[in-house]
């Protein structure tokens, strides 16, 4: 996946943004704030979250959809976290 400051895979330059209602924007802000702390143990989610967060300067339907997908993913695997192996390795696992 390419990584670009414009929003990477989520939104490329020149794509039309479909703006959303203010109450949805507020919901998104809340969700972004809450998921941010989750990236402490959910490193597999960090890139997806980063793409949403950096697009919060102008939220649109695509950002909202991405956030919903992140939450759906997290709801499916709420017990996952960082596993520090006794031998010294780290892996993402439940």
């Amino acid at each position, binding site marked *: 996946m390419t990584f670009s400051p414009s929003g990477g895979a989520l939104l490329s330059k020149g794509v039309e943004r479909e703006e959303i209602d203010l*109450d949805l924007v507020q919901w998104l802000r809340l969700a972004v704030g*809450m998921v941010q702390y989750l990236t402490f143990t959910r490193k597999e989610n960090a890139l997806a979250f980063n793409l949403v967060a950096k697009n919060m300067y102008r939220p649109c339907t695509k950002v909202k959809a991405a956030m919903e997908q992140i939450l759906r993913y997290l*709801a499916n695997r709420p017990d996952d976290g*960082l596993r520090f192996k006794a031998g010294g390795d780290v892996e993402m696992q439940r």
Partner: protein
Amino acid sequence: MLSHPRCEEFLKAEDAEVRKLTQMGARKVVKGGRRGVPVTEHILRSSFVFATKRFADSGEIEKFKAGLVADGSGQRDVDETHAPTIGGTSLRIIFAVVAQRGHFISKLDVESAFLIEDLDRPTYVQLPKEYTDYLGKPTEVWELIRSLYGLRQAPRLCWLGMQAALQGLGFRSSDHDPCLFVRKESDGTYTYVATHVDDCAVVSASMETNQEVRDGLLLNKGVKWEDQAETFVGLALRRGQNGDLLVHQPVYTRHVCDVRGWRRMG
């Protein structure tokens, strides 16, 4: 007056809080109320913050709490308010050390950490008018001896106290994180303490060393202690049979996902 249906419980809690501060020797009552305060000193406002604690299973109210907080925004003479907390990276490194070297991780929680440090300058606080009116007393002003929630320097005093206590036990701040304290033991192993306001994670090669650190900090404070830490700053720690350490946030993750249904989305 309070509008809560069970407001008497909160009034009782207010009294308990005032009694606790008195017992701790945290304040002196200024004779003559506002007039007893030197004219050069500011009198801070204060208020009670109310909270209920519920039983986790039934949701019934377990405890009514009232906390006195000063209005720190009225303070003009405080210049140092910096108080660091442990960095996420330091914390993960500690977890890695625990898993790799098979160290023990214990948790220490300082009780009413913001109330135990002595204040560095005279500070005056007026009790909430609603409270003294209810008691039928005239305006009451306190000169604070110890720190109180809401004061601008309260977190810093707490941090300085913690730092001094740990340095007294032979710990030194890491160069990379002021909240990560390190001590080399005589057998060549290292003991680490990560501080996060009133929470500390103690990591060392033996449980005896962990308990020695606890006893060292116990000297001047009341602490809550867990030999095997199960949580730290909202992270659940689970030790596997084979020594693996799983760090995850199952409760918080579920809470976050609940917010999804908080507003019906299209």
